[in-house]
């Protein structure tokens, strides 16, 4: 019997080019995205050793649109339609923070009824975003019912927003000084009816998806992010709350009328993929209560929009305001030099910070767990690239 070493020596003597396998050759490099439908417009390279991921390198920037630079060439009102493009599913929340910052710069106050309508639109939009995210999360865990149901029920909220704002996704509804129009006739009854129906549907979601043993096996104890690591990495929104930190901008820095609303910050302590996917679900439940409270407390009549010039400008200065979007804290830092156009606009988004946790969580996981970790991060590539 000849050993492997002898064979290798013999092949060398015969002039054959046989190379010994090195430690590096065990690793295989895989590229996920940017065209892969599972990653969004985002690419990350992973190296696998057998079934285990040993290296991950995120490569964002495929949908960079230069929103911040574009804002410097348009006035405060004209900025609204293009600033909502990064997240068209959550377009009310992304212009909410912008409007708050501009109002602080220009120095105007929104009428009370306007503040309530704004908060209702923002909560409805949060539901639309979370349902869309849940649909994608469902289909990438192989649960096609969970793709169909949220996509269908999303229509309940899109229908309400369509009646309120006039558009199905890109609302352009929040403007500095309030909202663009009052609620249509019979909006309150329609809203309460559809939100109550949705609350019933959430119980079915729990039965078919969250309490499903198959789903639990794929997500529990997968990609655990501890409390300390979550703080160090600076993650935001549902990812932060899933790691046991009850932090919500609506509670921590209440904007508009959120200090008058009674609600609980939803959080979980385990920090695994299941917790990260269950916290947005709890948020949806809480959002339904918030909408019902807002509709009850809303003043029956009054102004919805403060008088504002078509080309508003304020004294030189800067403002930073943030809101809780579907993906965590979303802040705008606007510097004005006294002209009608902003001197600098900086958008700070939760998506980008959640993406930075991806290499940390993926290394050491199996390849098959990649979708359950990646989508649980509540990451929207277009918003992260701006």
């Amino acid at each position, binding site marked *: 019997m000849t050993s492997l070493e002898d064979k290798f020596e013999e092949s060398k003597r015969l002039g054959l080019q046989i190379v010994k396998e090195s430690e590096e050759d065990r690793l295989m490099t895989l590229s996920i995205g940017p065209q892969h439908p599972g990653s969004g417009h985002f690419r990350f390279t992973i190296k696998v050793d057998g079934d285990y991921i040993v290296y991950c390198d995120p490569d964002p920037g495929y949908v960079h649109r230069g929103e911040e630079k574009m804002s410097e060439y348009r006035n405060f009102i*004209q900025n609204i*339609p293009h600033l909502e493009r990064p997240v068209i599913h959550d377009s009310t929340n992304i212009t909410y923070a912008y409007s708050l910052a501009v109002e602080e710069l220009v120095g105007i106050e929104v009428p009370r009824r306007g503040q309530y309508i704004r908060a209702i639109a923002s909560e409805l939009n949060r539901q639309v975003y979370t349902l869309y995210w849940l649909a994608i999360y469902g289909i990438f865990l192989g649960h096609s019912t969970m793709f169909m149901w949220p996509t269908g029920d999303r229509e*309940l909220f899109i*229908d309400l927003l369509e*009646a309120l704002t006039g558009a199905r996704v890109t609302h352009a509804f929040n403007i500095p000084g309030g909202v663009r129009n009052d609620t249509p006739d019979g909006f309150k009854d329609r809203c309460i009816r559809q939100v109550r129906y949705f609350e019933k549907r959430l119980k079915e979601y729990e039965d078919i998806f969250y309490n499903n043993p198959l789903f639990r096996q794929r997500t529990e104890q997968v990609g655990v992010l501890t409390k300390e690591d979550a703080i160090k990495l600076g993650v935001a929104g549902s990812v932060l709350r899933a790691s046991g930190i009850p932090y919500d901008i609506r509670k921590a820095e209440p904007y508009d009328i959120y200090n008058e609303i009674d609600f609980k910050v939803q959080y979980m302590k385990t920090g695994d993929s299941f917790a990260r996917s269950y916290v947005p679900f709890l948020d949806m439940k809480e959002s339904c209560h918030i909408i019902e409270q807002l509709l009850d407390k809303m003043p029956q009549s009054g102004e919805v*929009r403060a008088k504002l010039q*078509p080309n508003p400008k304020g004294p030189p200065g800067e403002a930073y305001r943030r809101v809780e979007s579907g993906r965590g804290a979303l802040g705008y830092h606007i510097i004005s030099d006294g002209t009608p156009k902003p001197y600098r606009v900086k958008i700070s988004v939760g998506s980008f910070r959640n993406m930075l946790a991806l290499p940390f969580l993926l290394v050491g996981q199996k390849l098959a767990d990649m979708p359950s970790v990646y989508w649980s991060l509540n990451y929207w590539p277009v918003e992260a690239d701006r």
Partner: protein
Amino acid sequence: MTSAGDLIKAIESGSKHLVIRRFTFRYPEQKLKFVGDGYQFDPKRGVGIAGYRGRHILFHDKCTGCQLCAIACEGIAEAIGMVKVDEQWKQNKKAIMPQIDFGKCVFCGLCVDACPFYALFMTNDYELSSFTKEHLIYTPAQLAIKPKYQGDVEIVIDDRGATHG
């Protein structure tokens, strides 16, 4: 935690939907019902009137050719251009009116907010597809036509679930 009971519950909750009427509807035989006749703006009060933001409608007897809509669209979509018209109106000495390129328009409705003469509103018409880009450019004469949109379906919720009917 992993129990057969949960699995049976999951299957049960899904199979219940085999007998419930579906939520989708048959477009284009059925169409969604909208609130009002489209988004409008009241310049006196400075507030819009809720409605769907579809294609625009231009009232020739009110347009003064002031170009405020075209200025509002600058930097957003640059879809509005002012063109010469043959008609003679007392309020429109220059005889220019907006022409809208719906290939560029983002339907934000800020041009409607800019119009101080109740001349430019939006309608419920959203079916604008055409085979060429040129057909998407609507001249003032085309914009004056009131669209015939008939929506007949809205969300109905009863004990058995939600449907479009």
